C-alpha cells in the first residue's frame, strides 16, 4: 500500500515538538549519570515498551577503565544502542572493547549492533545464543510492531564469548577488574551479573527489579535461591563454583557490595532491603500458587486470586503479575 503524506502533518508534528521544548529538549531516557567513579548508568523509564519512551525502558550503561570501556546492555533498538554509544563518546575516546549482554530480553539485548563498528567482544551467558535464536523473529516483530520506525535497522547480535553456569570471567579494563558470573536458570536461563572491584558495584541487571514488578521468565525456585544466597552471604562471589567453599563474610573470593544496579529502577545501596522486597513478592506468589495446585485449581483461578495484596507495591503490576502467576504455576505443577 502506498503511503500518502497528509499535508500539514509534518508541520503539526514540528510544532508539537517545539511545544515540548520547554520541558527539556532531551527526551526522557537519553542521558547517563555517573553513579560511581567511571560507572555510567542510562536509567530506563519505568514503563512497558511504547513509542513515547522509544523502548528506553531498561537500565543500560558502561564502565570506563584506564584502557578500555565495557558496555553493559544495549537497549531495545539499534537507535538506542547508537544513543548509548554517543553518550560513551561524550565521556571517553577509549576503545569499546567489550559489550556485555546480561540476558536475552529485547530491552537489554537488541541495541547490540550499534557497537559492531568498534569490533568488541560480545559477551553473554552460555545459553544466551540459543535463547536469542529461538526468540529472534518474535522479538524483532514485536519491536517493529510497537516502535515502528524507531526500531529500524535493529538486529540480533550473538555473543562471541560466553560464560557458563557457575563460571566467573574476569575482564581487565585497566585499573579495574570486572567479574562476570553466569547463573543457573532464574529470571531467565541466561542471566549474567557484572561486579566491578574498584567501586564494589554489582550490576545485577534483571536478577533484581526495584520498584517495578519482577518479571519471571525462567525459574522461580532458581531465582529465589540466587537472591536468597546473595542476601544471606552479604557479599558477591567472584570465584567459580568449583573453587573452595566460601565463608559467609567478605573475603578474597567473596567481595563487598556497596551498591547494586538493578535491571529496572534506581541504584540501591540498601540493597538487602531491595532483594528482600523482591523475595517477598516471589514467595507470596509461590505460596499462593502451591495452595491452588494442591486444591486442583487452575491457572485462571490463580491469576484471579494470588498475590493481589502486592498490587500497590509495584509499578506495572497489572501488566506483568498475571504473566508471572501463569509461568510460575506451570513450573510448580511439576514439584
Amino acid at each position, binding site marked *: 500500500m502506498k503511503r500518502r503524506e497528509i499535508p500539514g502533518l509534518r508541520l503539526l508534528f514540528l510544532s508539537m515538538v517545539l511545544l515540548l521544548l520547554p520541558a527539556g529538549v532531551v527526551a526522557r531516557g537519553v542521558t547517563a549519570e555517573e553513579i560511581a567513579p567511571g560507572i555510567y548508568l542510562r536509567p530506563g523509564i519505568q514503563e*512497558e*515498551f511504547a513509542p513515547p519512551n522509544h523502548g528506553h525502558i531498561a537500565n543500560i550503561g558502561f564502565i570506563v577503565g584506564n584502557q578500555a570501556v565495557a558496555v553493559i546492555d544495549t537497549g*531495545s533498538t539499534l537507535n538506542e544502542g547508537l544513543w548509548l554509544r554517543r553518550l560513551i563518546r561524550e565521556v571517553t575516546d577509549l576503545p569499546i572493547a567489550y559489550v556485555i549482554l546480561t540476558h536475552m*530480553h*529485547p*530491552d537489554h539485548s537488541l541495541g547490540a549492533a550499534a557497537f559492531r563498528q568498534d569490533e568488541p567482544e560480545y559477551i553473554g551467558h552460555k*545459553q544466551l*545464543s*540459543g*535463547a*536469542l*535464536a*529461538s*526468540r*529472534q*523473529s*518474535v*522479538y524483532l*516483530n*514485536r*519491536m517493529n510492531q*510497537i516502535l515502528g520506525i524507531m526500531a529500524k535497522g535493529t538486529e*540480533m547480535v*550473538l555473543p562471541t564469548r560466553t560464560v557458563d553456569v557457575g563460571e566467573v570471567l574476569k575482564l581487565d579494563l585497566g585499573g579495574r577488574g570486572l567479574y562476570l558470573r553466569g547463573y543457573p*536458570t532464574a529470571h*531467565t*536461563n541466561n542471566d549474567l551479573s557484572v561486579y566491578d572491584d574498584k567501586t564494589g558495584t554489582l550490576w545485577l541487571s534483571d536478577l533484581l527489579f526495584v520498584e517495578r514488578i519482577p*518479571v519471571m*521468565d*525462567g*525459574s522461580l525456585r532458581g531465582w529465589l535461591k540466587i537472591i536468597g544466597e546473595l542476601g544471606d552471604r552479604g557479599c558477591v562471589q567472584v570465584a567459580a563454583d568449583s573453587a573452595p567453599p566460601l565463608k559467609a563474610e567478605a573475603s578474597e573470593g567473596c567481595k563487598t557490595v556497596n551498591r547494586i544496579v538493578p535491571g529496572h529502577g534506581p541504584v540501591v545501596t540498601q540493597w538487602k532491603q531491595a532483594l528482600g522486597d523482591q523475595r517477598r513478592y516471589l514467595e507470596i506468589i509461590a505460596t499462593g500458587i502451591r495452595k491452588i495446585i494442591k486444591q*486442583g485449581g*487452575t*491457572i*485462571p483461578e490463580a*491469576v484471579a486470586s494470588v498475590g493481589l495484596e502486592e498490587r500497590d507495591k509495584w509499578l506495572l503490576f497489572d*501488566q*506483568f503479575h*498475571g*504473566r508471572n502467576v*501463569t*509461568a510460575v*504455576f*506451570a513450573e510448580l*505443577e*511439576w514439584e
Partner: protein
Amino acid sequence: MTAVSTMNHKGRRWNTCLQYTLILLCLCLIAGTAWAKDDGNRWFQIKSSLFGDKQIQSGEQILGLESPARAMDAAIVPITIDSKLEQTPDRYIKSLYLVIDNNPSPVAAVFHFPGKHSWETLSTRVRINAYTDLRAIAELSDGKLYMVNNYVKASGGCSAPSLKDPAAAMAQLGKIKFRMPEDYSQGDLLPTQLLIKHPNNSGLQFDQVSRFYIPADFVRTIQVTYNGEEVFTADTDISISEDPSIRFGFIPQESGVLEVHVKDSKGRTFSHSMDLPSQGKG
C-alpha cells in the same frame, strides 16, 4: 518411561491423513506470509482444508470458549471449552477442533470422543504468537459443525512462545502425571488433569548458532482409556504449550485403570496408568 505398542489402531488412517493435512497447512501458511496480514483469508484457507465446503453454524448453544482477552505469557495461554450440549449416545460431540488462526501451525489440536463418556469441560494451554482469532469447532455425531471464537491479543514485548529452560524440559521428557481430587464417588463426573513433560518444540525456530532449523519435537497423539475403553484421543500440534496439560472429565462407572498413551513426532511412545478404586477416600 515405557514403550507401548497397545495403541488403538482404529482411526490410524484418518490420523495419518490428518497429519499430512496439518503439515501441508503449516507449510502453506509459512510460505504465504502475506496471508498473515489478512485474518479472514487465513481462516478461509484453514476452513476449506479442514472441512471443505461444509457449512459451519454458530455454536453458542453447543460450546463455550474461555480464553484471556490478552495472552499473559505467550508460551502458556490457558483455554477452556465447555460443552453446553446434553450429550447422549444419539447426539454427542464426535470431534472438537481447536484453531489459532495466526499461529505458524494453526490447528492446535483435534479431540475425538467415542460418545460413551460424556464430558462437560475440557481445558488445555496453547502458545499464541500474535493477535489472533481462537476457534473451537465441534463436529457432532450427526456430522453438523458448530463454531465459537474469541479474539486474543498478543502478550507484551518480552514474552515469547519459546521454552524457558530447554535443558530442564529435556531432562524429564516423557514423565506423565494424572491429578484428580482425592474425594470422589463412583458414577460422578471425575475432573482429571493429565500432565505430560515434553518440550513440545515447534521446530520453526532458526538456530543461528548451528545455522539450522531446530528439528521439531512435539506430542502427536494422546489417547486416554479407562479399562481399555477410549475416553478420548487427541491429535496435537506445536501450538500446544510445553509440558502439555489437558483437563477433562469422565464418569468411572466401576473401579478400574485409567491409562494414557502418548506418541511424539520423533516416534517415541510414553504411557502411564493409574488404578481407581471404586470410591475415593473421604
